[in-house]
C-alpha cells in the first residue's frame, strides 16, 4: 500500500467546506469558507516555523490559491475582481490592481510559476485570462488572440518551463508563454464517436509529470498524453459525464490532485450520492496503473488532494472542515547497488531490468533497463514503498544468454 498510517486530521475553524488548496515544498495552504487562509507544515503537522500560518481574508471567501514564491501565496476571490498576495514572511495581505473576477470550485483555476512569481487565473468572460505579476504587484485582464472565442476551464504551470497550459472549451489545450500573449503549442482536441457525430472531449483539469500530461474532461474520460508529441497514450472512463458550463459555479468532473514523484491523486469533486472513491495512479505508466485507493462511504465531496514529496505525505479533504494526512513515501529517485557474477565471485558485464511489484500482478511495467560493467553499480529506482523484481541478463540472445533474478525491498 502506498497510502499508510494516518498521521493527522487537520481541523479548521468549523465544519464548513474548505474552498481551495495550494501546495509547495512541505507547505499546504487551505482557503476556507470561514474567510481565512491557513498554512500547515506537513512534516511537523504544525504551523510553519518562522512564517505566518493564518490570516483572515475579511469579507471575502478565497476560491483559489497558488504559491507564487516559497513564502507568498496568490489569492483569488469569487465575485471579486481583486486578487491579493499573502506574504507568509510578513503576514501582510496586499491587494493587486483589479482585473476580471476569479473562478470558484475550479481545481486548476489559478496557477503560478514559483520561479518567476507569474500566475494566471481563468475567468468567466469568453476570450479572457488574468495575469498576475506578484513581483510587480499587478494583475491584468488579457484578451490574447489565441484565447479568442474560448472559455478557459483551467490553467496549470508547465513544469520545467516558464509557460502555462490552458484547458479550453473547444477541446484544445494551449501552451502559452509567461506573458500570456504568445501561443507556443497546441494539444489537439480529442473526440468520441456518437450517434450525433464526433463529440469533443472538453478538458478542465490537468496535471503534468515530466512529459506526461493528464487531462480530466467534463465527459468523465481521463486522457494521458505525451506532451512533446501530442500522442494519446491512454484514455479511460473513470467518472460520469456532467454538463460543465461555468468556471464560477460548476465543480469539475475529474479532480486531479497535486502530483509528486510518479504518483497522481484522482478524485470526484462533485457531490457523491452514495460514497466516494479516491485513487492514486502511477503516472509514468500506460495503460494507467492504480496503485492504491481510499474510499468514503458518505455522500460528500472530495474537495482536494495531493502527494507531498518533501514530507512524504498524502492528503485528502472530504470536506467537513478537515484534511486527512497519511504517510505516503514517494521519493522520486533512490539508489540500490547491484552486480552480476558468473560464477559467484567473478563480476561480469550485463544488463539489469527493474520491475516495480505494484499491488496486483496485472500492474507491471519495466521501470529501468541498464547496461552495467563488471563491477558493483548503483542504479536509481523510484519507489521506496514497493518490492522490485530485478532481472540480470548476460550473453547473447539464444546462444550464450543467461538470466537470474532477485527481489529487493524498495
Amino acid at each position, binding site marked *: 500500500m502506498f*497510502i499508510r498510517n*494516518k498521521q493527522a*486530521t487537520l481541523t479548521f475553524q468549523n465544519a464548513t467546506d474548505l474552498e481551495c488548496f495550494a501546495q509547495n515544498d512541505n507547505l499546504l495552504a487551505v482557503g476556507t469558507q470561514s474567510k481565512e487562509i491557513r498554512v500547515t507544515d506537513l512534516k511537523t503537522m504544525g504551523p510553519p516555523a518562522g512564517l505566518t500560518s493564518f490570516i483572515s481574508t475579511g469579507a471575502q471567501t478565497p476560491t483559489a490559491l497558488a504559491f507564487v514564491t516559497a513564502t507568498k501565496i496568490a489569492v483569488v476571490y469569487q465575485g471579486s475582481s481583486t486578487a491579493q498576495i499573502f506574504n507568509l514572511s510578513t503576514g501582510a495581505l496586499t491587494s493587486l490592481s483589479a482585473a476580471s473576477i476569479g473562478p470558484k470550485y475550479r481545481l486548476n483555476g489559478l496557477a503560478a510559476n514559483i520561479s518567476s512569481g507569474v500566475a494566471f487565473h481563468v475567468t468567466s468572460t469568453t476570450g479572457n485570462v488574468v495575469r498576475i505579476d506578484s513581483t510587480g504587484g499587478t494583475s491584468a485582464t488579457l484578451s490574447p488572440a489565441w484565447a479568442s472565442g474560448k472559455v478557459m476551464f483551467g490553467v496549470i504551470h508547465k513544469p520545467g518551463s516558464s509557460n502555462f497550459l490552458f484547458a479550453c472549451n473547444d477541446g484544445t489545450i494551449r501552451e502559452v508563454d509567461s506573458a500570456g500573449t504568445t501561443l507556443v503549442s497546441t494539444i489537439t482536441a480529442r473526440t*468520441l*464517436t*456518437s*450517434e450525433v457525430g464526433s*463529440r469533443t472531449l472538453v478538458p478542465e483539469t490537468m496535471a503534468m509529470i515530466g512529459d506526461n500530461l493528464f487531462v480530466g474532461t467534463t*465527459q468523465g*474520460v481521463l486522457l494521458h498524453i505525451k506532451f512533446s508529441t501530442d500522442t494519446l497514450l*491512454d*484514455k*479511460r*472512463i*473513470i*467518472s*460520469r*459525464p*456532467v*454538463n460543465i458550463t461555468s468556471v464560477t459555479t460548476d465543480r469539475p468532473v*475529474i479532480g486531479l490532485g497535486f502530483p509528486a514523484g510518479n504518483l497522481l491523486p484522482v*478524485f*470526484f469533486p*462533485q457531490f457523491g*450520492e*452514495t*460514497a466516494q*472513491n*479516491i*485513487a492514486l495512479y502511477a503516472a509514468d505508466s500506460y*495503460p*494507467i*496503473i492504480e496503485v492504491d*485507493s*481510499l474510499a*468514503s*462511504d*458518505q455522500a460528500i465531496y472530495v474537495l482536494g488532494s495531493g502527494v507531498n514529496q518533501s514530507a512524504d505525505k498524502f492528503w485528502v479533504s*472530504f470536506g467537513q472542515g478537515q484534511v*486527512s494526512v497519511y504517510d505516503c513515501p514517494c521519493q522520486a529517485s533512490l539508489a540500490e547497488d547491484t552486480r552480476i557474477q558468473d560464477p559467484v565471485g567473478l563480476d561480469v558485464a550485463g544488463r539489469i*531490468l527493474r*520491475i516495480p511489484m505494484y*499491488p*496486483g*500482478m*496485472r*500492474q*507491471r*511495467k*519495466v521501470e*529501468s*533497463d541498464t547496461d552495467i560493467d563488471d563491477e558493483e553499480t548503483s542504479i536509481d529506482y523510484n519507489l521506496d514503498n514497493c518490492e522490485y*523484481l530485478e*532481472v540480470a541478463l548476460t550473453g547473447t*540472445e*539464444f546462444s550464450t*544468454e543467461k*538470466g537470474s*533474478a*532477485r527481489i529487493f525491498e524498495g
Partner: protein
Amino acid sequence: MTLTYDATTTPVTVTNVTCMTARPSSNEIVCALVNGSSYFIRRYAAASGHAQQGSDFALPTGGTPVVANGGIAMITNDKVLVLSGSNNNGYIVDLSTNTGAAVASSTDRTGYSTFRPQQVAGQPSAGIAIGISLNVFKLCRVTSVGAATNINPTGSGWFTNEFFTCIIPKGTTRFLLGTTHGRIIEIDTDGVIIKQYALPERRRTLEHTANTVRQITQLAYYSDYVVAVTHLGELYLFDHDLGVVLQQQSNLCVSSNNGSMFWLSEANGPSVYTAYGANPVIQTNIADVDMCLTPMKFADIACISGAIRPTAINYCNGYIAVSRDNNNIYWFTTGSPRSVTLEPVTITDGASGVDGELIVVDDTVSPPQVMFATTVSENGRDVPVTSGKSSVLMVSTYGRGVHRNFDIRREAT
C-alpha cells in the same frame, strides 16, 4: 478495437427496449420490448442494415402475464427465456417457429431487481438457464422444455441476508454468481458450488467507517479471468483459478445502488464498460476494454446521448446494440474481434506444477515493455502470446520470502 457509430442505418424505431440478449448462432440481437402494458419479443440482424428478423412474438397479457423486465437469455440456440421482474412468470419463445410456452411455476425467479443486467443466464449447449431470485440463496433453474426447479446453493461463511445479485455463463457448463456481500461463486448447471472467493477489504478513510459491504453488480469472464464491478464503483480483475486480485480500478462517481458502472463481456470479444450516472445524464460512455493487456486497456471509447438502461445493451458479431428510452436502437461497430492466441503455460518445480507469477517482457524495444503479467496456478493457465517478435523474455517466480525461486528464459514467438 475501434468503436464506430453505424451511421449507414437509420436508428430503428421501436417501443421501449426493456432488455436484450445476443443470439450468436444467428447473428441476431433479441429484444424484449414494451408497448404500454404489452410485451413482445423482436429480433434484429447484427449485420449491416440491422433488418428485423421474422415477426414479433407477443407475450401473453392475460392469465399469466409476463412483464418482460426481469431478464432475457438464450436457453438454446433457438429458444429465448424471458422472465418477469415483478412476478414469478417466465416464458420461452422458440424463435425458429415463433411459438412460445409458459415456464412451469416457480417462486424463485423474480430477479434481484428489475432493469438490472445479468439477472438470468443461459447455457444453450446444455439447454439450461438459471435466474436469480429475490429470496436469499435461491435460484431458479429452467430447462428448454419449460421445467422450472428452485435450487438453493449455500456455502460456508455466507451471510444470512446475502442475496445473489447477478449471474453469467462460464464456459459451456458452468455459471458465475455475484452476491450482495461481495462473493463470487462458480456453480454447475445443477447449482453445485465449484468454487467461491470474495472481494478484498475496502480501504476506507478513518473518518468514515460505514458500510463496507459491496454488492457485485456485474461480472465478466474470459479465459479464467473474472472482472467484477461493485455498486460502490470498484472494478476488480481476478485470477479465477486462484481467486486473487490482479488489478483494481476505482470509478470516481458512486451514484446509485444500481451500480455506478457496468460491464458486459463477450468471450474473446469486446467488453463494454460504461460509467452510469445520476440524472440528468448528458451522455453515456461506452468502451471496448481489452482484458488481455497488462494492465487492461481501454481500446476505444464511444458515447451516446442521455442515459441507457444497463439491460438494453449487448454485443453480437462485431456490433454493439444500445437502446435508451427514446424508442431507438443505436448500433456501433467494433471492427474485427481481437485475435488472441492463447498458449498454455505451467510453472514447474521439478516435475510438479506450482502456483507462481509470470511476466512476459518484450525487451527488443526501448524501453522494454511488459506484454503480459499474471498469476499462474499449479494447473497452469493459458496466456496470450503475440507473434511478430523475434523473442520475448519470460520471467517466472514462485515461492515466498527466502524460498522465492526464479526461472528466466527467452522464447521465440
